């Protein structure tokens, strides 16, 4: 490629034939990614497809074995993140890197402070931030502490951080994972504004809707290889997902009518104290889940869902209320007792609760059943039985790992860790399945699989209680939606009759049904 003058050269960043190997695997195999000046370029791929590795290479965290990076047509070497910053590359991480007790302004200038004789010059900074926020429509409150502002505003602070440093290549790592529908809408607009001002954006995502809506071009990665780069206007969601997974994918869960019958789980007046503040995190929640239905608790993160599930599964103590499972009162039962009474639990945090990361895959697969006579004899583990069982589950649920049953769980990809947990929990064949964000951070292929498994459970006559933050998942999968806001159930909706917008209003607390209406 001929070297052109910086202004005329169409590509602001080029990553050419990047190959990055890890022990036993090529994470990036001859990947080429060209980012045009002033475009929004989406990077799409399953977990483990190599998106993060590629971005880490661009950010100087990894050195590629082969290939080169060019900025404005000139070959550059990025040895560490400082080099990347010097090249005006900025990144909004999936988990924000903000200091909670600092003000918004302080967070923005942190690391790039103007000083005079060792004293901070905040006045100038304040002016610059104000100008930037007006220019791009990034509403912020500069003097608020980060801990007091919404997640959406925190993200805007992160974006302003990049702009304050005059970055013109912006990387967004799964930026919508933590936002409400309204906030996502706003982010999309911000990205368009940034583009209009000539910034170039790399947008990592596996949410097809967003990619279709906002991006100009899409580069799809699969298993470390580049499948291709396409113009967004000339493709469809179906085509993209097929490129990503390598086969046609069912984007909408196929499911028939629900035929709810007997009540499996009955919760009456459940309250759970908060660990953070003095009020209850969950307040007087009553609900029922029947055989053969998927009931979904929707809500924005942090509205009491976690505490609710913890109280239900026994990880935390409830302060009031009654829980009845399969006709038995389990309000004060131990965790093991609850699980044996008939509860499977796919936990929210797969690393904290779902797996013992330093155990092997097979040990994790029997984590809930190692004490059953099938796997032990007078307290001695039957290793052959465990191995056989693990092999069976790995085969049936297509759990992929480096060394099969003896792989350390830590070294597996997130999607396969989750598959292993789902395999373990669903194979226990319990009447109630509590699934908390079962598809968080997973790609379409894995989501499709887990969704179909949950529907299959429903059709087998299990009661499924799903807790999810993903609107699409809530709308697609559930037979009934309960919206939780500030620890209370504020509405019961029928997914067939409601819209995403209406659901969003309930989730944001702007709308609520009164108790009588809910009881119908």
């Amino acid at each position, binding site marked *: 490629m001929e070297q052109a003058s910086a202004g005329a050269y169409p590509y602001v960043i080029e990553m050419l034939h990047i190959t990055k190997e*890890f*022990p*036993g*695997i*090529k*994470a990036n195999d001859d990947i080429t990614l060209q980012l045009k000046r002033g475009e929004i370029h989406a990077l799409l791929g399953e*977990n*483990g497809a*190599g998106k*993060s*590795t590629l971005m*880490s290479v661009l950010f100087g*965290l*990894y050195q590629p074995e082969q290939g080169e990076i060019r900025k404005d047509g000139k070959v550059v070497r990025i040895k560490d993140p400082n080099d990347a910053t010097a090249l005006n590359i900025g990144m909004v991480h999936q988990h924000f890197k903000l200091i909670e007790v600092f003000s918004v302004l302080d967070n923005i200038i942190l690391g790039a402070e103007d000083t005079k004789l060792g004293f901070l010059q905040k006045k100038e900074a304040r002016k610059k931030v104000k100008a930037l926020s007006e220019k791009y429509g990034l509403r912020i409150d500069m003097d608020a502490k980060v801990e007091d502002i919404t997640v959406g505003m925190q993200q805007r602070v992160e974006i302003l951080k990049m702009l304050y440093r005059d970055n013109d290549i912006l990387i967004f790592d799964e930026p919508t994972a933590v936002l409400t529908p309204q906030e996502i809408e706003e982010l999309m607009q911000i990205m368009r504004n940034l583009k209009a001002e000539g910034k170039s954006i790399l947008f990592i995502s596996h949410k097809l809707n967003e990619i279709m809506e906002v991006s100009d071009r899409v580069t799809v990665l699969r*298993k*470390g290889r580049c499948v291709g780069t396409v113009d967004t206007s000339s493709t469809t969601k179906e085509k993209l997902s097929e490129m990503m997974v390598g086969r046609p994918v069912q984007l909408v869960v196929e499911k028939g009518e629900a035929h709810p019958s007997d009540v499996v789980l009955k919760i009456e007046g459940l309250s759970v104290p908060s660990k953070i503040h003095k009020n209850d995190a969950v307040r007087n929640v009553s609900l029922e889940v029947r055989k053969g239905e998927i009931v979904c608790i929707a809500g924005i993160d942090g509205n009491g869902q976690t505490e609710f599930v913890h109280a239900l*599964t026994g*990880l935390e103590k409830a302060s009031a209320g009654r829980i009845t499972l399969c006709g038995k009162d389990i309000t004060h039962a*131990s*965790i*093991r*007792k609850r*699980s*044996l009474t008939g509860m499977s*639990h796919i*936990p929210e945090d797969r*690393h*904290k*609760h*779902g*797996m*013992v*990361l*330093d*155990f092997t895959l097979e*040990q994790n697969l029997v*984590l*809930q059943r*190692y*004490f059953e006579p099938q796997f*032990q004899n007078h*307290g*001695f*583990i039957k290793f052959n039985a465990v191995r056989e069982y693990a092999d069976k589950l790995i085969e049936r649920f297509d759990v*992929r*790992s*480096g060394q099969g049953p003896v792989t*350390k769980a*830590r*070294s*597996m*990809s*997130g*999607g*396969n*860790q989750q598959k292993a947990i789902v395999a373990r929990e669903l194979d226990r064949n319990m009447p109630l399945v509590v699934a908390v964000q079962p598809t968080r*951070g997973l790609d379409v292929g894995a989501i499709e699989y887990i969704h179909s498994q949950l529907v299959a459970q429903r059709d087998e006559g299990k009661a499924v209680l799903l807790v999810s933050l993903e609107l699409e998942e809530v709308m697609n999968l559930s037979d009934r939606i309960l919206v939780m806001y500030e620890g209370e159930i504020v509405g019961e909706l029928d997914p067939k009759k409601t819209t995403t917008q209406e659901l969003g209003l309930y989730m944001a607390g702007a709308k609520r049904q009164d108790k009588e209406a809910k009881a119908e």
Partner: protein
Amino acid sequence: MKTRSFFNKDGTKSVLSTLISILIGLIAGALIILIVGLVDDKLGLKEAWKGIRLIFFGLFSKGQQAGRLVFGFNSTNIGDMLFRAVPIIMTGLSVSLAYKTGLFNIGASGQYLAGTTAALFIALKMNTAVVAPWIVWILAFFGGMLAGAFWGAIPGMLKAFLNINEVLACIMTNWLAANIVTWVFEGSGLQCTEGTKTQVIWKTSHNGVATAKMGLDKLFPESQQVDGGIIVVILIAILIYILLTKTTLGFELKACGANRHSARYAGIKDKRSIVLSMAIAGALAGAGAALYYLSGSTEFHWQTYLSLPGEGFTGIAVALLGACNPIANIFTGMFLSTLDVAGSKLSFFTEYNEYITDVIIAVIVYLSAFSLLIKTWLTKKFKKSDDGFRKIPDVAYTSKSGQGDKLPNAAAAGKEGNA
């Protein structure tokens, strides 16, 4: 290719890295002896050479003839070595078991003292004219074990219920034990009054209680000390190995140690597991003390135990050096007691101070903490010569990305390769 895969085995690398630590420690000891020898007028090069040989082969020293060291099989040394290994293998097992279940038992000293007190008290206070001495021995042994278990369970409970760091609690229970021992034996009537001795408790043989020799006195006829204790220790080590690797209880304890939250999620009683781990660890240390003092030939100087017994801390060295593997602990314990014997030979046959062996042990323990580093180095070394093989320990793999979710999916690539 075959030798290479042998060297690439994880176990082989662990053993090799331990052996390298030991070798470097011994060389460091030899260097110190050399330097001290050259600096000190009394010693000199000839004495230093003697010292170095004793450090390496002290166990096989047969004394001196005409100022020259003679080496060969010495049943006294080997028997003594085995006897001295008994308590430190046990405290080593104590530390190892706690470590494998996610706890750092720095309280082995206190548990050891608790075991000492209970075992001696039972062995000396029970009337052997009424109860057969072997029954008293068994009661004393289990008494020591229980006392240790109780003493270990205290920091366990503090950790489980109040979330107090076990290291802090262990340090406090250590000193509590040291003072309680003094209080118990003060005026207990168990002080030995032979000759000019003060502050010494009667040997248990005074009451006719002593560990059976189990034929070891025939094997090592000249050793006064060796007895069946070492056989009991080896059996216990094997039991602990089985407990940790083969049983559901071990599975629970390890799960709880590796991730208390997910263990709890899976219905394992996390609090019970933590207390139990510490109690078993304490029982092992207590049993070690019981075996040592019930041999019948050892004296307990209680006044000096206002400071803590070294066995508890040597146990940490035994455990670390053996990568906290109960079977490996048998060997590392014996190795450290070999150094102990070598140290006494050193002070006997040369002008050197026997505490040089402590320096060597210190160097080895430091290095064994670096054993992971040595292991990684070994991995690299064998990788270089064989491009087809690539294996880096999990640690190196995860530390960089930090996020489990983002790890490259090795299997996905593997599957595609097959297809």
